[in-house]
């Protein structure tokens, strides 16, 4: 009995090697940065980092599911802009109730996600192409709607969701944690979660299993759009305005978090916990480098190296497995 427990522990370590190594790297950073900057490890800064990664983490939750499904969603960055400007516009241009406007912003994300899902599940057009198209459409529409300049909203209420606090906890961090937990529940404790792994791992087998492949695909892309809509509203709230350039390249940060977290780009395998660690690594790195006054161009270089390293560790691990 004891032996099998040891085996289980060993297997757990083997399975989660990428995450464990990532946590070790994090721990090292947490001990190195304080030496160079006094503000790094404070509670305030911890929440600061969490708030900075909150929008990326929302996107990354949806993106993890999409990638496990064997797809990709490039549209989420542009959806941030479109849902942000539209929610802001509803308040400042049409004088709508702030919460209603925010709900409309989130719904815009959901609609674009549903559109992606509809096309991808009904045709054989690659997800890359479909979401590349909606990425451009959404970005373009944000510019058309705003004429290129931010849509301002002056209201305390408006700012609460993006910049407010409950006690010492920033609101976007709370939202991120809640949605992370919901996403984990979906993946681990529902049938649809298992079906996502099935479709991504072997679509033909999923069909033979009687799984409605198109329904699963539709739901996952819709969920990803919903998360992007929510992220857009939060960002617009924090910036007191909907900006047509918001979320530029955000889809790539989300993909980076997913990949650093050990999810397979070819689908069928991955964990949301890994994505959280991935988002944390990227967030803490850029925060730490910021505090060290490293210029932003070098920060981008470091981000690239981290992605390569993470994938390389995975590659080595798989190489050993296949022997």
């Amino acid at each position: 009995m004891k032996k099998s427990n040891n085996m289980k522990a060993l297997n757990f370590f083997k399975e989660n090697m990428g995450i464990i190594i990532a946590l070790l790297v994090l721990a090292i950073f947490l001990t190195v940065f304080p030496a160079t900057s006094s503000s790094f490890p404070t509670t305030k800064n911890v929440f600061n980092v969490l708030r900075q990664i909150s929008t990326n983490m929302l996107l990354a939750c949806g993106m993890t599911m999409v990638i496990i499904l064997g797809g990709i969603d490039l549209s989420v960055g542009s959806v941030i802009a479109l849902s942000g400007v539209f929610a802001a516009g509803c308040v400042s241009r049409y004088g709508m109730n702030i919460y209603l406007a925010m709900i409309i912003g989130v719904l815009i994300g959901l609609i674009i996600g549903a559109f992606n899902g509809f096309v991808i599940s009904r045709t054989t057009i690659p997800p890359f192409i479909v979401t590349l198209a909606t990425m451009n459409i959404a970005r373009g529409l944000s510019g058309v709607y705003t004429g290129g300049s931010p849509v301002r909203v002056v209201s305390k209420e408006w700012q609460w969701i993006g910049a407010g606090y409950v006690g010492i906890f920033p609101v976007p961090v709370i939202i991120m944690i809640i949605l992370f937990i919901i996403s984990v529940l979906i993946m681990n404790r529902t049938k649809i979660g298992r079906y996502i792994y099935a479709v991504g791992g072997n679509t033909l087998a999923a069909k033979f299993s009687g799984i409605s492949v198109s329904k699963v695909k539709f739901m996952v892309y819709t969920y990803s759009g919903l998360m992007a809509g929510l992220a857009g509203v939060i960002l617009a709230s924090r910036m007191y305005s909907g900006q047509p350039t918001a979320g530029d390249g955000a889809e790539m940060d989300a993909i980076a978090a997913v990949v650093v977290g050990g999810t397979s780009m070819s689908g069928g395998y991955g964990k949301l916990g890994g994505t959280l660690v991935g988002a944390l690594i990227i967030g803490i790195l850029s925060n730490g480098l910021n505090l060290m006054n490293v210029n932003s161009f070098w920060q981008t270089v470091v981000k690239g190296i981290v992605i390569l390293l993470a994938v390389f560790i995975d590659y080595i691990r798989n190489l050993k497995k296949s022997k």
Partner: protein
Amino acid sequence: MADNILLRMKNISKSFPGVKALDKVNFELKAGEVHALLGENGAGKSTLIKVLGGIYSLDEGEIEIEGKKVSIESVHDASKNNIAIIHQELVLVPYMSVAENIYLGRESGKGFSVNISKMEKDAGKILDDLGMDIDSRELVMNLPIAKQQMVEITKAVSVNAKILVMDEPTSSISDREVENLFKIMRDLTKKGVGIIYISHKMSELEEICDRVSVMRDGEYVGTKVVKETDKDELISMMVGRTLTNYYVRDFMPTKDVVLKVENLKDGDKVKNVSFELRKGEIIGFAGLVGAGRSEAMQAIFGLSKDVVGDIYIEGKKVGIKNPKDAIKNGLALVPESRKEQGLYLLQDIKYNTTIEVLDEFIKNLNVNSKKETEITQKYIDMMATKTPSQEQVIGNLSGGNQQKVMIGRWLATNPKILILDEPTRGIDVGAKSEIYKIMNELVKNGVSIIMISSELPEIINMSDRVYVMAAGMIRGCIDHKEISQESIMALAAI
């Protein structure tokens, strides 16, 4: 016809993990003859051809061409020795023209330039000479399958091969084109080319072949002159193995019809298929590859869109639009190809066993892990699956154990009707006999089984009745007492 030996393959052996695909096979081809290679599915014909074509390297044995020993390690070596192979599957580039395909890899032109007009002219001339009505500038993707096959043949002819291998070249072309193909073959043999001809169609042998060699279970059985033999002799050479005794089967015939299928149609793959399955019965579906057996079962299981026909389960007419409906009606289908159609290779045994029965332990955001483990363990025990743990990733198991997990997955749904498509393909003898035992237990407990198999011994020993299919149709039904390899092959061969 000169008696000079063009090709001699001596004591060729080739093993794959767990299977001896070729065991000391001998084969001889004379210049100017058409030599048929005959055998059941899995007899080793294709492996032998792939050794000759440099796709597989041989473990033991020698290949001589015109008396000289040669070593064929790659496709390149094969073409250097003037060997051309027309494979059963088409290997043309759809987005290229006919001419470009014919000269692929040996384009006309100097340096990096390609002289397309010259290629088109040359290809056009060859096509004309062969009497083929194909424009060399047409894109291959615009041609019907039959014409693509003719392009493939033209390509092989155009390299001026001395040894030409044709693997079922007539499987997808019309009678008129077959006539033309035979004419081309006769012209080639007059020039001294030796042709190895693989076909399941006995009638073609008499028409075009001079000699025939038979293979069985990876072994060479013998060679006959076509004029001095007949269909019956060849069939008994193909199937004449002694049967092993690991089949377990208690026959207890019943009268209740569990499944009745009437006039099932699916495009041109399944034509007017009707049959009956009784409670506690195993019915076998025999036939050659491509006879439409798997397609018929997939149509019943709701995996195809354009299915016409009536399905009755326990006397009631049912509408099955998708696999979900099929499962609800007590059907289960273990597909032919485990890896492509069945397994989630990155996931563990637990996941792979329970994917059809998630309702039993996932409710209201709660996973009852104890129940999940119980279900998994039940089918590991029932199937005697060998594994260190339930968390073992299924991709790391042997083929036999993977198949046991697949069958367990579908047994977990408590099916009334279990369809097994090639249940023992590519698995070892021990696992095979265990699967037979389980099948016998299942029918004793009232489950009814449909088994598609290309292994005649297992069809013969396990089935109450055998339906034989060919070209999408049921050619006949043979009762248990009359089942023999000869009776099946007589119906399966076209």
